[in-house]
Structure formats: structure tokens, C-alpha cells
């Protein structure tokens, strides 16, 4: 049982980490708590599902469709909501509230079109087949989620640390004014970050919908709540923190079920989270001096 619970914890952690990556990126660079990230997640899942059901596309192509659609949504989000608010120097809460509005309208629109009920991807081998080692089962999909969470984190870190654009992004996260003075295309970078964060959310949506077997309009909400916890735990805006925070929450939940009892799951998992924040208010990877990305 212990070995299987370890596998369960790692896959659940991978799920949380995958969701939190885009969420933390947009916070790190744009300094916006994007509460529409759950809706992007949902949008990705619905796009891929419709691509599979209506257009009969294979899963990989459906994933590509989800990436295109959510990237577009991320572009629109920045162009029509975040950028105008930036231009008017709206107070901190304004973009957050605006993203709540976007999330609600996206959720309701999808619900209006596709209905409120749970949908699912047609059966396929990815989520059902997998490795069996002794008594331990892990599906290919779980493996893929875990690996992808690490790969995406590594790619994001490489991009931020090793490329010119990443360098510019970090400069931007440090000080928008200084970055603009250095000739960095601030608005362009903001827009691109929103696009990348949204498509990361979309990719997470497709994979997690496959994993959990459930696509429904509100699917992003519980994920968003946990995502916020993960990102705060990891250190707001820190890519490594999102990954670590995700795995921490996954392990905390699974092992509180395994050893304390499932009724106590959230109490134990979030109690632990609270305890860690008391010890390290800036999060696991957060820096006291507010350096992000």
C-alpha cells in the first residue's frame, strides 16, 4: 500500500504542479493574481474534447488545438483586460477582480454551450494502461504528467535564465520602469507571458481531464483554490516553488488520507501548509526582497 500511495502522491503532486506553473508565471511577471487561470484550464480541456469528439482528431492534434485556443485566450486576456488596466495604472485588486469576471463568464458560456454535466474523453489506452510493478500500478498518463511537469519547469527555467528574452523578462519583473528605459518591449513581453501562462493552463487542463476522467465547466475552480495554495507555498512567482509546492500538497493530501483518515484530508494538508507559511512567510522559494520570476 505504501508504494502505491507514493505513486498516487507523485501523480497528484504532478497534477497540482502542472496547474501551478502557468499561474505562478503570470504572477511573477505581470504581478497579477490571475483568477481566470482555472477557466483557461477548463477551456483547454473543452477544446481538446470537442476536437476529439467533433473533428475526430487524434489526441496529440487535439492537444495542439487546445494550445492554440488557450494561447489565443491568453492573448485576448492581456490585450483587452490586463493591458488597458495597466495603461490606466489601475490599483492592484482591479486586474484580479477582472479575471474573476472573465472566469465566471467563460464558465457560464461553456456551460451554456455544452451543458453542466460531466463529459469525458472517449476511452483510450493512455489513461487505462500502464506499468504494473508488483502491487503498484501507474498509468502512462500519470507518468506523462509527472515527467511533463518537470520538463516544463526545466524549460521555463532555461528560458528565463539562459535566453535573452528570459533575461528581459527578469529585468521586467525586477522593475518595469527600468526595463522600459533599457529599451525592452515591455508590453510585448507582458502579452507573451499571458499567452504562455494561458497555454500552460490549457495543456494542464487536457492532461488532468484525461487523468481524472471528468470535463465540466467548473473543473477549474477546485484546482484554482489548490493552485493558489501551491503557489503561495512555493513562493509567489517562483517556477521551482510551483513544482515543489505542488508535490508538497500532493504528498500532504495522499498521506493524510493514508495515515490520518480521509475526513481529515484537507484539515491536515492545509494545516501543514499553514504551519510552513508561519515558519517561512515568503514561501519555500520566496525571497524576502520581492524578487520574482
Amino acid at each position, binding site marked *: *500500500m505504501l508504494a502505491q500511495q507514493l505513486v498516487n502522491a507523485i501523480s497528484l503532486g504532478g497534477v497540482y504542479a502542472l496547474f501551478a506553473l502557468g499561474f505562478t508565471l503570470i504572477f511573477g511577471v505581470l504581478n497579477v493574481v490571475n483568477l481566470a487561470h482555472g477557466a483557461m484550464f477548463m477551456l483547454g480541456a473543452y477544446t481538446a474534447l470537442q476536437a476529439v469528439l467533433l473533428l475526430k482528431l487524434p489526441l496529440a492534434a487535439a492537444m495542439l488545438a487546445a494550445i492554440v485556443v488557450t494561447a489565443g485566450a491568453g492573448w485576448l486576456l492581456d490585450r483587452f483586460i490586463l493591458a488597458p488596466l495597466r495603461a490606466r495604472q489601475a490599483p492592484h485588486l482591479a486586474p484580479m477582480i477582472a479575471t474573476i469576471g472573465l472566469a465566471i463568464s467563460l464558465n457560464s458560456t461553456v456551460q451554456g454551450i455544452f451543458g453542466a454535466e460531466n463529459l469525458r474523453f472517449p*476511452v483510450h489506452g493512455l489513461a487505462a494502461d500502464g506499468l504494473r510493478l508488483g502491487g503498484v*500500478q501507474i498509468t502512462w498518463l500519470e507518468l506523462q504528467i509527472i515527467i511533463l511537469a518537470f520538463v516544463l519547469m526545466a524549460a521555463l527555467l532555461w528560458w528565463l535564465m539562459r535566453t535573452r528574452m528570459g533575461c528581459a523578462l527578469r529585468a521586467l519583473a525586477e522593475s518595469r520602469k527600468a526595463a522600459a528605459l533599457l529599451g525592452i518591449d515591455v508590453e510585448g513581453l507582458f502579452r507573451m507571458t499571458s499567452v504562455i501562462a494561458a497555454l500552460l493552463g490549457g495543456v494542464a487542463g487536457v492532461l488532468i481531464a484525461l487523468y*481524472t*476522467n*471528468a470535463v465540466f465547466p467548473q473543473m477549474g475552480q477546485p484546482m484554482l483554490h489548490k493552485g493558489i495554495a501551491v503557489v503561495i507555498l512555493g513562493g509567489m512567482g517562483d517556477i521551482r516553488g510551483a513544482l515543489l509546492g505542488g508535490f508538497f500538497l500532493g504528498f500532504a493530501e495522499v498521506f493524510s488520507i493514508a495515515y490520518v483518515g*480521509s*475526513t481529515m484530508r484537507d484539515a491536515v494538508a492545509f494545516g501543514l501548509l499553514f504551519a510552513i507559511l508561519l515558519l517561512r512567510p515568503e514561501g519555500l522559494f520566496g525571497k524576502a526582497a520581492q524578487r520574482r520570476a
Partner: protein
Amino acid sequence: MMSMQLTRVLFGALIALGYFSSLSSAQIKIGVAEALTGNAAQYGVPIRKGFELAASEINGSGGINGQKIELIVEDEQGKKEEAINVFKKLIFQDKVLMLFGPTLSNSAQASDPVAQGAKVVVFGTSNTADGITSIGNYVFRNSVTESDILPVTLKVAAQKTGLKKVAVLYGNDDIFTKSGFDNFKKALEALKIPVTTTETFAKGDVDFKPQLTKIKASNPDAIVLSALVAEGAPAMVQARQLGIALPFIGGNGMNSPKVFDLAKGNSDNLWVGSPWSIENPAAENKRFIAAYQKAHSALPDQFAAQAYDAMYIVAQALKKVQLSGKLEADRSALRSALPSVQITGATGAFKFRQVNGKDGKPAGYDAVQTAIVMMTKGSQYVIQK
């Protein structure tokens, strides 16, 4: 010029609308408050379709004592607060004769007292949790409660599968699935079936593997599952992924053909009890299924069937009532006429049974019906006798 004409047309339409709505005051206004959006819409939408089908059949054959039924449908979103709002709107603003709804027991606990207070019949077709009808003597339901169904389900499943011990998995933050759990627990105690472990999950959970892993390690013969299909179906799929091939014994929330879709390929060996089965060959049921399919080009479920029957139960009562046009008197006359109704509908033979309130005095009315136990096999229900 165009816009002048358009204005005239619109104006004419407005007058016509006003004219018709003043005509419609001679109709019997019945409020329908169901969850048409949100998670519970998967129950609320078929419920609405069931009402609409029955009402159109009744109106098509001349109405009730010459009066047509007019349904005023409102979306209570499966939320307590909304249910209360919608109830108030239907009772005080639309001045309906009676109310159907709400969809979830959770909402009924909150909103039914509003109807009871206003002395308006509230008729639930899908509220199966304990204690709903003890709210008061204006509260009716034709949904057979889980305390009637679950013991029968367990007993039949135990006989057929020879199970000796079970594990329990249930949603502990929802009054419906929690009350299902309480009833399962009582029934398990009565049948002296030991429980290896009891695990819970919360609404909106999507990952059940930690609980299922624990259940697997406790080595039961079956898993008792008190869940709505939105969580229950993924739990079944994940159990099969973990190599757990045990039978699932589900409560009322698992009794929906959606399970064949949501747990496709893994939906076998689920045992549920129900007042209604699509496989039940009774003539009333076949007629209902055919009519529903024709009207909505989809197969009905238990929720549609119960709503359909409920409308006929009310129609039966209304036939015996001389409506005076005085709202208060008519509302109370309907209440007095309802308890003695007996019909045989899509869900079989039906009558009411009065229950006691929390103060021990007679209160609302529950259904008396025989449960059908079914097992899923190859995306179909097989009736177990």
C-alpha cells in the same frame, strides 16, 4: 421609416403578449424550481423535461377540469440561496398554486420551510435525504427515500454476490451523499455486514486513488459508494485502474445512465436500487419511455420518470379540487387532496405515507413504492430479482 414600422410591430407584439398573459390567469400555475445550470443540472434538466412532457400530455387531452397547466420554470442552480430566492419569487410574485422542486436535498432543507411558511404545497421529485418531509405538512415527495431503497439494494447484492465484508466510500460534505452513507451504515449493521474501512471525499474532488488504495489494502468483498455520479463514475474508473475488480453498491446518486458514459468501459458491476428502471417492462413505463424519447430524442432517466409521475399525481389531486380562484383557499384545498392520491405510473404503483416532524407530530408525506435492484453489465441495467 423602417424603425417606425419596427416600433409598431414591437408595440403590437407587446399588446398581444399582455393580452395572452391576462388570458393565462385562468390557467393552473405551477412553479418548477430545479437546478438547470451548475453541477446538479444533470438531474434538474431531465426533471424539467419530465414535467414538461406530462404537462403537455395533460393539456393535450383537455387539461384538468377544462383548465390548462401552465409551468413557470425557474433555475435554482443547485444552490440553497438560489432555491430560497426562486421559491419566494414563485410563491409571492408569480403566485403559483404549488411548487415542484428543488433538485437537491441540500437545497430542499433550506427552501422548503419557505413554502411551508407560506402554506404552499412543495413537491420534491428528487429529494431523497432524511428529514425533508418532516419540515411540515405542505411538503410532499414521490422520490423514494434512500432509507427504503438501500437496505433492499444491499440485501439483494449480498445474496447474489455472497459478499461478507465491505468498504465504504462517500462524499461527506453533501447532505445527500452523507445521508446515503448514514442509511447504508444502518442497513449494514442490520444485515451484520462488517465494514473494513470507511473513506470520504469532498464535492469537486477528481482524484480518488489514495482512498481506493487504502480500500484495496483493507481487502473487502465489495465497495459501498454513496456519491453523485459526477464523482462516483471517476471513482469507479480509478478503482479499475488500480486493479480493483470488486462490485460497487451505489446509492441513489449513482442510479443514472450517465454512469455508462462517464465510466465507459469500467461501468460494469455497479449495483443500485431504484423506484424506476428503463428495463421495467410495465405498460405505463413503456408508454412513458416512448413518449419521452419522441419529445426529447433522448432516453429518460429515473429523475425524468419521477417528475413525470409527480405531475400526474398532482393532476389526480387537482381533478378532485374545485378551484375557487382564491389563491390561499386553492393552495390549501390542493394540500388536502394530495395525500389520498394513488396512481400507477412509470415508477410503478404509488401512494403517500405521512411522516412525523421533528416534534413528533404528523408532518409531510413520503412515497410508498417498491425498489427495483439492478446491476450494470455491458452499458445496461440488468434487473436482479
